[in-house]
Structure formats: C-alpha cells, structure tokens
C-alpha cells in the first residue's frame, strides 16, 4: 500500500495534498570569496526559489517565512571580563567556549522571534540569543548568560555577529533574496549559508550551501610564509627595514 502511494505521489500532488512539503532551491552569489590587497569586505547575495508541490502557491495558508543564516568556522575562544581592581581595569574573570562561530549573520523576512518559538530557535541556532557556544562545564547559568551577552555584544559591534530582520525579500511568495555584508575582519575558512523555510512556527525545508573564504595572491603568500617559514619571514622583515632606512639616509645625504 505504501509503495503504491509513493508511486502515485507525483500524481496526487496535483490535487493539493495538505502535508506535502514545499522545497527550497537556494543559491549564493559567490561560492568563493578571495581576500586580496584591496579587500574591504564582500557583499553576499543569497537568493533562491520556493518550489510548492503542484507548482502553485497554496492559497489560504499562513504566510511562509525565509530565514538565511551565514556562519563562519567555529573557534575555540576565551572571553575575559574586566574588573576594576586597585583603581585600574584588569581582566579578572574568564569563560571558555569551545565552539563559537567566528561569524554569524541572520537575515529573515520578519523578526525571528515572531517566526519561531524559543525551542525551535535553540534547535536550529536561529538568532544571536540562541547560539550554542559549548561553554565549559560547571559554570553558573547567570554567569554564563552574562558572558554570552558580553561576547555577542562585542562581536555585534565589530560587525561579526549580525541580525537583520526584514532583510529577506520574498517576491510573490516564490522568489526570495537577501543581502548580507561580510566585513573585512572575517577569518578565513569554510562558511556555510543555511536557508530555512518556515511556516506556522515549523521548519518545512532547509538547505545548505558552502562558501569558501580565503586569502589569495600576495596576501596568501605572506600569511603562509609567516606561518611556515617564520625565520625567513623574520629575516625578510629585518632586511626590508634596514634597506628602507639606509636608502632614506642615502637620499637625504644627496639632497
């Protein structure tokens, strides 16, 4: 019986089946972002189409929402909090997180709190309030909360954590697009762009595309040299400074 249904499914879809799910066909404007000398950040266009079963948008249903999340590679970080001790501000308490995203941007068609409830937000890591940072064990939850708040605040101000409600535009309920800016100080690595189709607080479909961000040309060469041949790199830096200093002295003497 089940097998028969599966065969018949494409046919049945023509007469709107209530729990047939729509599908997402997402894409990004750039699969590779190259960091060269003039890199001041990049603008990413995330777009795609919603495919409804039967090829037609069902009428009379709650509106569908699109949420796009771009995440950078996770990092193991230490967040420190300053306190005033003996008149000066010094780092006092700290909290370790083993998987904090280096970059997190969320674009949605409506504010995320109005699209899904807290539990769903936590499951899919939707929104800056629902990041799963994997803190070390044994920390009180209110201390933990304070540190997370501090981290999000800090990253937000440097443009590395972004929440952009209303940034997703949906045209005729079928086509969507969102623009997100990647700031110049992003780390390199593999980024993921996840798109979620949500209706009535339920995630109906999700799709992921990868984006590679890497240094290219001279910047890649320098970063690699500094890491792999540190001694040669250091000698080059010293030689450069001696040569420039000497040249300037020579020029000044001739004048």
């Amino acid at each position, binding site marked *: 019986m089940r097998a028969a249904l599966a065969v018949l499914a494409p046919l049945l879809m023509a007469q709107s089946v209530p729990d047939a799910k729509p599908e997402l066909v997402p894409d990004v404007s750039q699969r590779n972002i190259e*960091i*060269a*000398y*003039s*890199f*001041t*950040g990049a603008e990413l266009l995330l777009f795609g189409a919603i495919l409804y079963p039967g090829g037609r948008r069902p009428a009379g249903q709650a509106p569908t929402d699109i949420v796009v999340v771009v995440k950078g590679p996770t*990092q*193991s*970080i*230490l*967040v*420190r*909090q*300053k306190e*005033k001790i003996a*008149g*000066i*501000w*010094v*780092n006092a308490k*700290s909290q*370790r997180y083993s998987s904090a995203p280096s970059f997190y941007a969320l674009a949605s068609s409506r504010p995320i709190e109005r699209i899904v409830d807290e539990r769903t937000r936590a499951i899919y890591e939707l929104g800056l309030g629902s990041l799963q940072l994997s803190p070390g064990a044994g920390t009180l939850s209110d201390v933990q909360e304070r*540190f997370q708040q*501090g*981290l999000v*605040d*800090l*990253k937000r101000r440097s443009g590395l954590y972004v929440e952009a409600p209303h940034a997703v535009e949906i045209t005729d309920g079928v086509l969507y697009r969102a623009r997100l800016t990647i700031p*110049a*100080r992003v*780390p390199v690595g593999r980024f993921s762009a996840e798109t979620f189709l949500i209706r009535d607080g339920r995630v109906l479909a999700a799709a992921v595309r990868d984006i590679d961000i890497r*240094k290219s040309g*001279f*910047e*890649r060469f*320098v*970063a690699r040299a*500094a*890491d792999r041949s*540190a*001694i040669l*790199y*250091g*000698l*080059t*830096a*010293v030689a*450069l*400074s*001696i040569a*420039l*200093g*000497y*040249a*300037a*002295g020579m*020029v*000044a003497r001739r004048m």
Partner: protein
Amino acid sequence: MDLYLPIANLSVNALVIVLLGGGVGLLSGMFGVGGGFLTTPLLIIYGIPPTVAAASSASQVTGASVSGVFAHFHRGGVDVKMGGVLVAGGVLGSFAGAWIFRLLQRSGQIDTVIGVIYVLMLGFIGFTMARESIVAIGVSRGGLKPRPRKRRHHPLVAALPLRTRFYASGLYISPLAPLLLGFGTGILTILLGIGGGFILVPAMIYLLGMATSVVVGTSLFQTLFVTAIATMVHATTTKAVDIVLAALLLVGSVTGAQLGARFATKVKPEYLRLALAIMVLLVGLRILLGLVWRPEDIFSVELT
C-alpha cells in the same frame, strides 16, 4: 586608500598608517629617539591588535635607527665594544621577554602590564626630562647658574667584578653593568615594541658615566640590533609581524626622520627636549586614562 593587512587580518587606510609613521619619524629625527613608544599605542588606538602592533613597530624602529648608526659610525661616535656587550645583553633580554610575553598572554594580563609599564616609564622619563630642560632653558637665558657635574659611574657599577677597559667610552668597569642594562632594555623591546633609547641614553650617562660623545651612537647601535632580533623573536614565536604594516610604517618614518633631523638643527636643543618631555607626559597620561577609565569594552575575546 584601503589596504588589507595579511597578518593583522583587517583592512586599514594605508595613507593613515604612512602618515602615522611619518609623524613618528619626524619626532624621532628631531629628538633622536626610535619612536616605538609612540607607534605601538597609536596603532592600538587605531584598532590594530596589540600583539601585532608591538611586533610590527619593532621593525619600524630598526629602519629609523639605521641611518643614524651609519652617521655616528662615520664620525667615530660608536663604542663598538660597549655596543657589543649591550647587544649581547639585549639578545638574552629579548628571549626572556618572549617568555614573559607568553606567560602574561596566557594569564590575560599582557595589555594591562604593557599599559602600566608605559605609564610608569613615560611618567618618570617625561618628568625628569621636563625638569632638566626647564633648568637648561633657565641657564641659557642667564638667569640660573649651571651646576657642574662630574662624569662618573654609579657606586653600584663600580662594585661589580671583572673590570675591563672601554676605550671609546673612557671607562674601566665590569662588562656586567652594560650586560644587565642591555638585558632590561631587551625585555622592554619585546614587551612594548620600543627601541629603548629612552632608558639607555640616561642610564649610560648617569649610571655608567660614559663619554657623552659616544652615548647616542652606541645607544642607536644597540637599538638597531636588538629591535632586529626582537622582530625575529616575534616572527618565530608570536607570528605577529605584519610585513605590510611594517612597510607602510617604514615608508612614512624613514622620510619623516630625515625631515625631522633637518628641522632639529634649527631649534635650540633644550626647547626640543621640553617639547619631547611634554609629549611623553601626554602619551603617558592618555594611557593612564585608558587604565583607570571604565573601558568601552568590558569583555574581550581571545582565540585559544
């Protein structure tokens, strides 16, 4: 003109960095100092990570001291033996400095320690220099009588064993004294990205009692080598030397240094010293405010 720095991992306005280097170079040419004490804090204020700032400004000081060393060599203003001992101490000091740097970085106190050392050092030197130059201005105006001062080394220096002769400096002292001096300066070079001429010159005059004609040349000689080694130490341990940032700073500072040196010959030295003292005190005050004022960011993030 925006330019991406491959090690600092951010994009800066190249013109601002060149001008910053130029301004510092102008001062270093005028006053005969490396200028690292200004570069590092200014870069940090601009938004460069502190470690990258300290590591990259050390190489700027190397560039700024090169032409000075050559000039002093030509007129015999470098005591090579004394300089060699200072450099040896500086090398040991920079290794010790790298170890201290790592230790402080791990405990999260590196920024505070850098700030506190700056405040103490700049406060002390600025105050001493201001007082001295005001007295000198009084003397040159004829209102005050100069106090005669005999050139001699500190009694503690005299107590050290293994004395040897430093002909150019006109001294017969233990090499341990300049070795220790070089050691201390080497630590500061790594921690703060400064050349240390600030500490060396007064210490050579007042502690060692060196002949003044070789003080500046020998100090520059030590600065040249120790900042070069500090760059190497940073390149191999913290990996925070940004060659693009260093090049931008160098282009500005070597040009500025030559202009500054020309300008310096037209102004009376005691007025120059007073101006430098005021500037040193201002930088110190700015850093002090940064330490005691409630910072904008209570939280900070560090990769582990």
